[in-house]
């Protein structure tokens, strides 16, 4: 930021630039794109969890008028793509457009019908008969881990990856502990559930031999690189565009078979080919999350100081190792983040990721951290209860203190300066914690099951090139790019590799560029989500876009500002150091000489001879910069929940929910609040309602939105959010990532609050979601155990 171009827009509640189109139905989501001669795909999906495909009878379907073709894996020669990993002993799995020879989960696509309309395609799909030879369904991760039956025949076992961590002297820590608490925790499977289903539309241009894939993806750059490999086409002939995307939450951050499929079909048929998932397909095939069993034990001294932590993490990663993140992503991140924001020197963990006959697991908001926070925050409350300490006091004495940063955790993650203790204190103040405890006492006096729960956590965001966003994953996710340019009309465009899908990046990134250039925010057009617009990018995930793309926006904005001032200084016969830009007008201090950006743009590009020849070679108003924060930065928060459990229905109601968080400097406080709100409510869903349920044959029982319950406005409390709003020291602009945090702390806080509400029955919530049925069982067991 230049001296007198102090930030005007950064930090302001700027109304979003993307809103007018989205509010008037003028947005452009993938399924909204209508091209002439489009062909539509319907898929025949497996109704077996594990079976060999014996036959696919397509005769009746093929005879249906309007059917263009029916395809199985035999029709394509593309070789499978593998998510590779540097982790020792990792076993990869191949990803193909359609199942080859066998199916490994219910919903895996076997055959594709291409027809003139989706109606006809679905009619035809219904006429296709698949012959199966069933194989044993490996649905339980413990059984799958030990089974001789292999999901992938070339593997040595169904364990795709395993690893042990150890740091410090755990044995001594446990031997010397005054209190040891342990439990077996279970966080059931969930699905991201974006309201827009996945949708892919491939348009192969025969003349140019080039493919455009419109994809509801978070990672157009990753998909472009993958498709270039699978299709054996040069990257410049494969363009992946993520237009308006209707939410992702991680579920749209991986490569999907259908993206390969429509691309192959469009190239084969020479016509645009579209596939849009229906909700059943989404619930069966979009990557899922959690599904971990975590046996963990915490050792604490008599004063409540944490001494040591041990954990065994068994992750059910489903049938395939997802591209590009691999099967290591979720369970390894649980182990990585389990030591939390606390002073905890001695830690050991064993992680096993097992393939089962279920939907592949992949990234989901928080990745590993929601389960890690759930386990550790429960253990801390269990220890506090044993010692008779208040949960807030227990955290206060164990959080990494302000003078201890940078702090290396037991898993090796390094926390940079972040407001761990400050967030705890701010949350208590914001909630008026003593008054809340008084309210709890009054409620209990009246016979109500009222509980208060606290959870603190830290997460690594804006991860740079020295780390991998997924453990062992070889692709670089540590840099982002921005190109800022002023054209001959004086209009400003800023082009990014990230892909906004609800985060409002068209606004926040424009705020940064506009502040750097000294122009109004709506004068900056932000381009994102288009692989052809940048040389390399991955996309938007892992709370990285504000930090990485925001940093790149600062750098390229500054570079273009310098070019503008250089040109303007020549035109005004002034010194560039004496010039300022405000509201798009360049003026010389102390004089009345001014120029508009349009005048500079016109002069630079259109007015021949305006500048001397030696200046012109370098004189474009354009700059591309990359930003790499190297390690990343630590976002932290404390969540406090107040809940009430109905003693008759066992339904949990969240009465109050407050977050105090440190996401560094806020670019747009309104957008930050919105991100936190959304994250909290997904965390409430994970804690209370959302569960993907399979039967013993791997059939998905939660196959509609009636069975898979997401929170509506009626189940959601008023949400309170407080910010420290202190610039992070380690990132350009002082930003920290914050898109996921709401989902990390909420399940832990709610689990603690329910446990507190049921404390008169000595019930520990160790399984989420805490559905009425589960609470009913716990209460019944507790009461029967007493008699």
């Amino acid at each position, binding site marked *: 930021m230049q001296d007198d171009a102090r930030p005007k827009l950064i930090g302001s509640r700027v109304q979003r630039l993307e809103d007018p189109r989205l509010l008037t139905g*003028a947005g452009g989501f993938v399924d909204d794109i209508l091209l002439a001669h489009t062909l539509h795909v319907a898929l025949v999906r497996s109704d077996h969890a594990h079976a060999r495909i014996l036959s696919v009878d397509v005769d009746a379907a093929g005879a249906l008028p309007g059917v263009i073709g029916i395809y199985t894996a035999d029709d394509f020669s593309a070789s499978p793509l593998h998510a590779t990993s540097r982790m020792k002993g990792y076993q990869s799995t191949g990803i193909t457009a359609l199942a080859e020879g066998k199916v490994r989960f219910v919903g895996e696509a076997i055959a594709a019908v291409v027809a003139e309309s989706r109606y006809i395609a679905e009619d035809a799909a219904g006429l296709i008969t698949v012959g199966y030879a069933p194989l044993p369904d490996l649905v339980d991760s413990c059984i799958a881990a030990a089974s001789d039956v292999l999901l992938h025949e070339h593997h040595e076992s169904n364990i795709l990856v395993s690893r042990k961590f150890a740091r410090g002297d755990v044995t001594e820590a446990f031997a010397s502990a005054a209190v040891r608490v342990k439990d077996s925790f279970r966080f059931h499977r969930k699905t991201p559930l974006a309201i827009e289903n996945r949708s892919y539309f491939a348009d192969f241009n025969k003349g140019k031999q080039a493919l455009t894939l419109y994809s509801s993806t978070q990672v157009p750059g990753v998909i472009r690189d993958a498709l270039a490999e699978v299709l054996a086409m040069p990257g410049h002939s494969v363009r992946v565009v993520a237009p308006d995307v209707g939410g992702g939450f991680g579920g749209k951050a991986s490569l999907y078979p259908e993206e390969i499929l429509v691309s192959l079909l469009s190239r084969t048929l020479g016509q645009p080919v579209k596939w849009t998932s229906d909700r059943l397909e989404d619930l069966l095939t979009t990557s899922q999350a959690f599904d971990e069993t975590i046996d963990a034990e915490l050792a604490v001294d008599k004063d409540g100081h944490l001494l040591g932590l041990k954990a065994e993490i068994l992750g059910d990663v489903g049938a395939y190792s997802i591209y590009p993140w691999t099967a290591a992503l979720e369970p390894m991140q649980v182990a990585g983040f389990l030591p939390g924001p606390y002073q905890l020197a001695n830690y050991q963990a064993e992680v096993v990721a097992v393939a089962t006959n279920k939907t592949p697991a992949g990234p989901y908001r928080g990745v590993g951290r929601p389960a890690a926070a759930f386990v550790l925050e429960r253990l801390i409350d269990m220890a506090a209860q044993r010692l008779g300490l208040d949960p807030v006091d227990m955290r206060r004495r164990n959080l990494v203190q302000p003078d201890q940063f940078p702090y290396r955790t037991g898993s090796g993650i390094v926390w940079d300066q972040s407001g761990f203790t400050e967030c705890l204190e701010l949350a208590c103040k914001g909630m008026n914690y003593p008054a809340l405890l008084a309210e709890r006492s009054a409620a209990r006096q009246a016979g109500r099951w009222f509980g208060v729960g606290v959870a603190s956590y830290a997460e690594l965001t804006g991860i740079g090139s020295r780390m991998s966003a997924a453990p062992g994953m070889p692709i670089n996710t540590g840099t982002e790019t921005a190109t800022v340019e002023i054209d001959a009309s004086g209009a400003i465009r800023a082009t990014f590799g990230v892909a906004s899908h609800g985060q409002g990046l068209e606004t926040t990134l424009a705020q940064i560029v506009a502040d750097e250039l000294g122009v109004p925010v709506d004068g900056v057009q932000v381009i994102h989500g288009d692989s052809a617009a940048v040389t390399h990018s991955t996309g938007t995930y892992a709370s990285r876009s504000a930090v990485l793309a925001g940093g790149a926006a600062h750098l390229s904005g500054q570079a273009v500002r310098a070019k503008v001032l250089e040109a303007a200084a020549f035109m005004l016969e002034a010194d560039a150091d004496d010039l300022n830009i405000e509201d798009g007008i360049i003026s010389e201090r102390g004089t009345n000489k001014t120029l508009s950006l349009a005048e500079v743009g016109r002069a630079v590009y259109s007015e021949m001879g305006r500048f001397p020849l030696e200046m012109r070679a370098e004189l474009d108003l354009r700059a591309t910069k990359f930003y790499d924060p190297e390690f990343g930065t630590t976002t932290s928060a404390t969540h406090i929940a107040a809940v009430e459990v109905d003693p008759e229905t066992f339904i949990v109601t969240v009465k109050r929910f407050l977050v105090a968080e440190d996401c560094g400097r806020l670019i747009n406080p309104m957008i930050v609040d*919105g991100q936190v*709100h959304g994250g909290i409510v997904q965390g409430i869903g994970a804690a209370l309602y959302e569960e993907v349920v399979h039967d013993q044959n791997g059939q998905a029982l939660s196959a509609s939105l009636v069975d898979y319950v997401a929170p509506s406005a009626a189940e959601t409390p008023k949400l309170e959010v407080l910010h420290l709003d202190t610039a992070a020291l380690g990132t350009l602009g002082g930003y920290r990532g914050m898109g996921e945090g709401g989902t990390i702390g909420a399940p832990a806080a709610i689990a603690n609050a329910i446990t507190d509400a049921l404390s008169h029955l000595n019930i520990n919530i160790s399984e989420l979601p805490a559905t009425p049925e589960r609470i009913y069982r716990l209460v019944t067991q507790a009461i029967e155990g007493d008699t």
Partner: protein
Amino acid sequence: MIRKRPITITVNGSTYARDIEPRRLLTDFLREDLGLTGTHVGCEHGVCGACTVLLDGVSARACLCLSVQADGRDITTVEGMGEIGALSLLQEKFRKHHALQCGFCTPGMLATAHEILMDAAPLTDTEIREALSGNLCRCTGYEHIVHAVSEALKERLGSIATGSALNAG
């Protein structure tokens, strides 16, 4: 071939006469036949509410409605509620309060909220939450949506009380 039937539907004030398969969903008719892609499809089983439109002024799930059932009826979609540069009261409030993120559920949310404003009954925030509970949003956590609807409703009630002709939706 399935025999097509003639239907006449008024959408956002324009009347369309088409021959249409009896099984064609209203969502597909609006989106593909009329190009009104503002109405979104989220679940096709009537739960998520993204496809909500106003059918003769009453909120309805376009994904559970056959086009032939809308024959002779009047439909308002999000495209009929306001436009860029001339947003409706509700659209303005949604923007002011950041009541949308990805924007996919927004057209359905606006249709339900429009009905709340038309009913013109004073509602508490809890009652607004109940009234919006048929529309799922995964981005906003609903907090800002409640703020937007609450403020729009207050202004609507205020304008009714003072008799001014404020644009309703």
